[in-house]
């Protein structure tokens, strides 16, 4: 094996090492923890960039753990999509960590360790080529996310966390049932091997595979937040601490990714079945999710809840359009995935900064009032890292506008490019399906709703409340938000190469033969 091949496992090993190292350092030496944490994450981002370049130049990289050949050993597979998502997750994690350095990592024990284990699980889920291994990485990321959801404690977080844990434990049990059913139906758990065996199956045998896939689908779609499996999402995300909520923006996308990967691998159009199994369910469910999210966005008085519902809107959009199974639509959807993750993560971070100046309980729906009351105390006592920056309100307002443009899909930022690419791809097929018209309406209406919601909230925060004390914002906190928004700007300016890359990723997803051959090839 050449050294280049080992880059595939680095996105899992590095966060693991960082998690273990920060666990070994005592809580009293928070600066040391922070240093380890930031250095390791920077290394990881560099490794993810390298991996992306290798994959783009040399094609799919398959890493055989222990050098066992594919259907027997566990494989990690880095294709274009996985590499891009690993980079996205690592960059997001870097921003959240830097943001948390200002004060959030002091609010509870072992923040750094939890973040790194979460990242390990997310990266593992993106890279693994084995169904049961996927379950293990899901559990790693879920276990870490339980801890992060409760970070900072308080009744609101514990109450939402309790529901979150129960829902996800049940989803994990369904995952196990689906995986074992899949094993007993096909005799393998390797995704590539699974795909090639399912393709050669008769109708009678496919019934069991399809029921296994349906059970697995419920587990993944719960994670992705498909209506009606999404009622846990808004309370959990809205009550989680800002850096944790921003990190959670990638978790729904993990669900979407897994659906995209496994579903297209097993039931890609052009294989035996004429219409892919379950695509109608996915389309209808996705549309219902957009509607539910839209209503939620309009109804939310609280900014964090608004952001949580906008996460639902974006995951509904993704699920609905990937149901169409068209490479061009998928490629636009992948661009939308990247843009909406960056946008909503930036918003979650920004909300905490904006709300900091307000007196606790000012919101009509003071769901997180108790949590914020606890926080205001610690801000007063806080004389930690960084200096307050001037012109705070102006800067915050500017960032808020940028987030609103990203999420509503207005020019000039990436949100617009994403929605435009989606609509363009939807209307390329002739005759234009009724689905495309429905999606057009839903996309525009949900964008309008987000704009109204954000506009209303922005006016209330920035213009209509003269008594508000200017929040004390640290430079590094602003830096983290600016980093995420700069990433949005970067993918807007460089939209052509990004879309080219994601287009190739989508092509590869829709032609699973290449993936199967790469994985099952004899070393």
């Amino acid at each position, binding site marked *: 094996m050449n050294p280049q091949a080992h880059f595939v496992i680095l996105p899992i090993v590095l966060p693991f090492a960082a998690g273990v190292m920060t666990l070994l350092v005592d809580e009293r030496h928070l600066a040391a923890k922070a240093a380890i944490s930031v250095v390791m994450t920077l290394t990881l981002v560099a490794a993810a960039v390298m991996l992306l370049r290798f994959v783009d130049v040399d094609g799919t990289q398959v890493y055989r753990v222990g050098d066992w050949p594919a259907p027997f050993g566990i494989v990690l597979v880095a294709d274009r999509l996985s590499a891009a998502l690993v980079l996205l997750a690592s960059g997001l994690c870097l921003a959240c960590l830097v943001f948390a350095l200002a004060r959030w990592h002091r609010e509870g024990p072992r923040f750094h360790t939890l973040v790194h284990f979460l990242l390990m699980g997310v990266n593992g889920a993106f890279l693994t080529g084995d169904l049961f291994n996927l379950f293990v990485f899901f559990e790693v990321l879920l276990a870490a996310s339980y801890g992060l959801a409760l970070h900072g404690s*308080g009744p609101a977080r*514990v109450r939402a966390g309790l529901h979150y844990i*129960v829902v996800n*434990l*049940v989803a994990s049990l369904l995952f196990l*049932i689906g*995986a*074992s059913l899949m*094993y*007993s139906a096909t005799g393998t758990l390797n995704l590539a091997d699974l795909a090639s065996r399912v393709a050669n199956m008769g109708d009678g045998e496919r019934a069991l595979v399809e029921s296994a896939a349906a059970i697995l689908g419920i587990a993944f779609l719960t994670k992705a937040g498909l209506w009606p499996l999404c009622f846990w999402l808004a309370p959990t995300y809205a009550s989680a601490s800002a850096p944790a909520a921003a990190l959670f923006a990638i978790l729904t996308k993990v669900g979407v990714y897994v659906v995209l990967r496994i579903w297209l691998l097993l039931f890609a159009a052009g294989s035996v079945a004429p219409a892919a199994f379950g695509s109608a369910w996915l389309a209808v469910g996705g549309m219902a999710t957009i509607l539910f999210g839209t209503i939620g966005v309009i109804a939310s008085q609280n900014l964090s809840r608004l952001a949580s519902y906008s996460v639902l809107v974006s995951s509904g959009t993704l699920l609905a359009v990937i149901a169409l199974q068209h490479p061009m639509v998928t490629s636009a959807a992948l661009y939308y995935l990247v843009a909406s993750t960056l946008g909503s993560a930036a918003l979650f971070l920004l909300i905490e900064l904006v709300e900091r100046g307000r007196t606790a309980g000012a919101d009509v729906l003071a769901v997180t009032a108790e949590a914020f009351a606890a926080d205001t105390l610690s801000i007063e006592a806080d004389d930690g890292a960084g200096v307050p920056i001037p012109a705070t309100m102006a800067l915050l307002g500017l960032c808020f506008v940028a987030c609103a443009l990203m999420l509503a899909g207005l020019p000039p930022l990436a949100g617009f490019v994403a929605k435009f690419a989606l609509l363009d791809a939807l209307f390329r097929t002739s005759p234009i399906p009724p689905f495309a018209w429905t999606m057009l309406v839903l996309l525009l209406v949900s964008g309008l709703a987000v704009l109204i919601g954000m506009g209303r909230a922005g006016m209330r925060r920035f213009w209509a409340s003269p008594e508000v004390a200017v929040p004390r914002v640290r430079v590094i906190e602003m830096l983290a938000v600016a980093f995420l928004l700069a990433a949005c700007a970067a993918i807007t300016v460089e939209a052509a190469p990004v879309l080219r890359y994601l287009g190739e990723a989508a092509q590869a997803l829709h032609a699973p033969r290449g993936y199967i051959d790469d994985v099952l090839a004899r070393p």
Partner: protein
Amino acid sequence: MNEVVVAAAIGVLASSGVWLMLRPRTFQVAIGLSLLSYGVNLFIFAAGGLRVGAAPIVAAGAPADPAALADPLPQALVLTAIVIGFATTALFLIVLLAARGLTGTDHVDGQESDA
């Protein structure tokens, strides 16, 4: 006959687990989750086919005969699932206690429903 007994056991465990999970007290939910995970563990174990007296490992020196061996993979999977399920249930118990302490009630919503 074996199959019927195992299937019935899984069914009873899963159904009582689901029923308990829909109850309003956090402790009932915890027990429900445990029962459901026992049912699921048995299900995974059964996915490899039920065999009596067959080892999942080739004896040293003996020729490997797949027909005489039990499927080792589900047994490995079920071990992983047991460990993970155990850990997450333990974590859930901690959150259960925290919720009881913070809200003063053991209702899953943190407050008694208006009955």
